[in-house]
């Protein structure tokens, strides 16, 4: 959202989930249309992408921030990836087989794929990546899914068989993890160099990293899917949202993500209409208020439901996102098959809220106009992290609305590290935060009652036995249809319990220079077919000879 802080800061706020696969939005589809329109595709030109943050490391299994993931996504491939319809398809794996008991996955690897240094890709690389992932010395946030693996067997150079200790539905998706070259990372010291000079199997190969300024990639001629059309990819780092935008306006950038304000107000003139295309699709993440369920006030379901009525989500979306988002009703976003369309968000209804609060015993008001129960005023602290404009604005709007039903809200904006500390010690009333989501709906870590210990993610201490059971089931079952039913039910139950007040799902708002063709928006965004984007000869801006 609109903020002047580098995204690391914000992103850590959104992406608390230990395993998520943002990079999938930047991976590319096998089945993307080759041609589009009447013109013939051509090679050439370059795309200059603007970013607030600078990648931290280009070692795929360590890359946790969006900037690192973006570059990693172009230089590497996983075994599988999501296509435009968010179905898992093969990437470095041509296909796979899941045993009937769901315990074994066999991957059949693509033959003839070459690393960018010319060496052939084989099962050894997959094994190597797996070993690094579970190595305790590797500080990777992604090890969780892989620790459930009981046995990893190389059948031959192009076949691996992976055995899990129990059926684990998100397992397949976890193999979207980019595969690293075993032959280049034999020694510990190799990683150091690799983190700033990676070599992968992906469509683009790394050329140069000018620290603090830009990263340059070039099309990999021998890419197994075919060489990308755009010759060169430059990732320019401009640490300030407004400079980023001004640079775009100066046409020094081809592709950035807009803030809602920029989308709605600053790009509606003829200049932008002529030179750029804007896109808008729901992002995979939501913003919520988490109530500390150990707090006697919020233990009462009626109070939480009252909050849901008293907070005007439409207003928040209007004020904070300028309408560019959807009301969130549960832990799944609208694009996901797990989303239960039957769960309808209630209208903003302060009377209903007051009734519910009265039912919970908050039926009298003091002189200041705040609700009182047992001599205590209804007052709580809403905590959020520093440097996130959208959350700050959001908190202010909520403060105003809750005041109207007689609840006093104190906003406390703290530094991210402090916030984590407070959450960890459970010393909060309510937190305003966001989750970034993977494409798999599994949310066991967030809502299962076994995950309430310190540093685990069910920090609101939510406990519902039915939900617990369903979450367990959802992980064991592989069939999309059966899982769909399970997660729809989870959605309904959680919504009814309101451990969170779900606020909104913001839209992703990319803007791209109009000369790029072949962009096909889908529910999986636009990045999935990036290698098929192209620029007509006469419109190409950058000539490349080095």
């Amino acid at each position: 959202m609109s903020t002047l802080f580098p995204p690391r800061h914000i992103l850590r706020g959104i992406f608390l989930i230990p395993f998520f696969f943002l990079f999938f939005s930047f991976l590319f589809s096998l089945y993307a249309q080759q041609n589009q329109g009447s013109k013939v595709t051509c090679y050439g030109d370059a795309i200059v992408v603007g970013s607030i943050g600078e990648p931290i490391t280009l070692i795929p299994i360590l890359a946790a921030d969006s900037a690192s993931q973006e570059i990693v996504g172009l230089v590497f491939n996983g075994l599988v990836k999501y296509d435009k319809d968010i179905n898992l398809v093969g990437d470095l794996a041509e296909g796979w087989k899941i045993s009937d008991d769901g315990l074994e996955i066999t991957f059949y690897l693509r033959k003839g794929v070459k690393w960018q240094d010319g060496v052939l890709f084989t099962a050894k690389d997959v094994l190597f990546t797996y070993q690094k992932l579970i190595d305790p010395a590797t500080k990777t946030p992604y090890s969780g899914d892989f620790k459930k693996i009981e046995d990893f067997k190389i059948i031959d150079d192009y076949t691996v068989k992976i055995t899990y200790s129990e059926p684990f539905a998100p397992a397949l998706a976890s193999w979207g993890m980019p595969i690293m070259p075993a032959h280049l990372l034999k020694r510990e010291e190799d990683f150091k160099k690799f983190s700033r000079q990676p070599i992968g199997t992906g469509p683009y190969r790394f050329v140069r990293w000018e620290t603090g300024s830009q990263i340059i990639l070039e099309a990999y001629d021998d890419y197994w899917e075919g060489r990308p059309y755009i010759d060169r990819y430059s990732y320019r780092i401009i640490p300030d949202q407004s400079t980023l935008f001004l640079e775009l306006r100066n046409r020094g950038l081809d592709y950035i993500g807009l803030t809602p304000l920029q989308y709605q107000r600053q790009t509606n003139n003829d200049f932008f209409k002529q030179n750029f295309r804007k896109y808008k699709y729901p992002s995979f993440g939501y913003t919520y208020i988490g109530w500390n369920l150990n707090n006697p006030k919020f233990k009462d379901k009626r109070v939480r439901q009252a909050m849901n009525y008293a907070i005007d989500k439409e207003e928040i979306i209007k004020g904070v996102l300028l309408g560019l988002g959807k009301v969130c009703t549960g832990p799944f976003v609208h694009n996901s098959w797990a989303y239960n369309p039957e769960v309808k968000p209630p209208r903003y209804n302060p009377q209903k809220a007051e009734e519910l609060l009265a039912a919970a015993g908050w039926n009298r008001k003091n002189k200041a106009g705040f609700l009182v129960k047992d001599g205590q005023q209804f007052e709580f602290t809403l905590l959020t992290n520093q440097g996130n404009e959208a959350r700050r604005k959001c908190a202010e709007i909520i403060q105003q609305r809750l005041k109207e039903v007689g609840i006093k809200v104190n906003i406390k904006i703290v530094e991210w590290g402090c916030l984590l500390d407070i959450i960890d010690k459970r010393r909060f009333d309510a937190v305003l935060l966001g989750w970034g989501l993977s494409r798999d709906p599994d949310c066991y870590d967030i809502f299962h009652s076994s995950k309430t210990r310190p540093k685990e993610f069910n920090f609101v201490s939510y406990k519902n036995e039915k939900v617990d059971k369903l979450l367990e089931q959802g992980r064991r079952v592989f069939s999309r249809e059966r899982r769909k039913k399970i997660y729809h039910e989870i959605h309904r139950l959680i919504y009814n319990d309101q451990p969170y007040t779900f606020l909104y799902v913001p839209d992703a708002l990319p803007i791209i220079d109009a000369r790029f063709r072949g962009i096909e928006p889908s529910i999986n965004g636009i990045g999935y077919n990036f290698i098929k984007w192209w620029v007509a000869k006469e419109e190409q801006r950058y000539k490349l000879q080095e």
Partner: protein
Amino acid sequence: MNKLTLFGISIIAVLILLAIFAPLISPYNPQAIDVDNILSPPSRTHILGTDSLGRDLFSRMVYGARVSLEVGLVAVGVSLIIGVLFGSLAGYWGGRVDSLIMRFVDIMLCFPTFFLLITMVAFLKATVFNIMLIIGLTSWMGLARLVRAEVLSIKERDFVRYAKAMGAGNFKIISRHILPHTLPPVLVAAILGMGGAILTESALSFLGLGVQPPTPSWGNILMEGKAVIDIGWWLTLFPGLAILLAVLGYNLLGEGLRR
């Protein structure tokens, strides 16, 4: 030049009035969000326009004057306390105390101002008070040098010798006989310092490291304004002018007093 001094005084006077009567003067609650009036240009209802949350810019700037005034006063107060203390100790005692303190001043002056500020901001919580404290803690060195030089010259004067001969204690000599005579130049330096403190605070807030929103400060209004500089010129123009005028006011006043 006299006219300019008067101009300076009137700017400061207006600033003080705005700060004191902020609740009466501002037509809106400076933090009242109005999502239907986002980024409306100056008009009859919002004379300086609204910001990206629909809040009234004029009201926010009036409250911002409070922050600026406070920052000037408190930051300079802090640097006065430290500067006068160190300066008079060094000047009065001379010898080792003097060289120790002046070394300390030299060392502090080695740190690039903003590096020191940023470091302190990073290590302390960014409350308004801390920001003021930090600005004060990083700007007392000039005052210390000034006070020391003044004390050095005054302590040789006859009335100080006389007081000493009459058996007055050191503390009394410093506070009664020496410090009052350093007042004029110190006052000038302090007033110029207030302008400097306002500039520093606004720069910090502009970088997002200073006064944290929603508390309005001219610096963080500018920060928010920068994001919409192409469509919301009023959010960049007016707070910038306000800073310019306030600092100019202090500078003119200080310069006028120096004469």
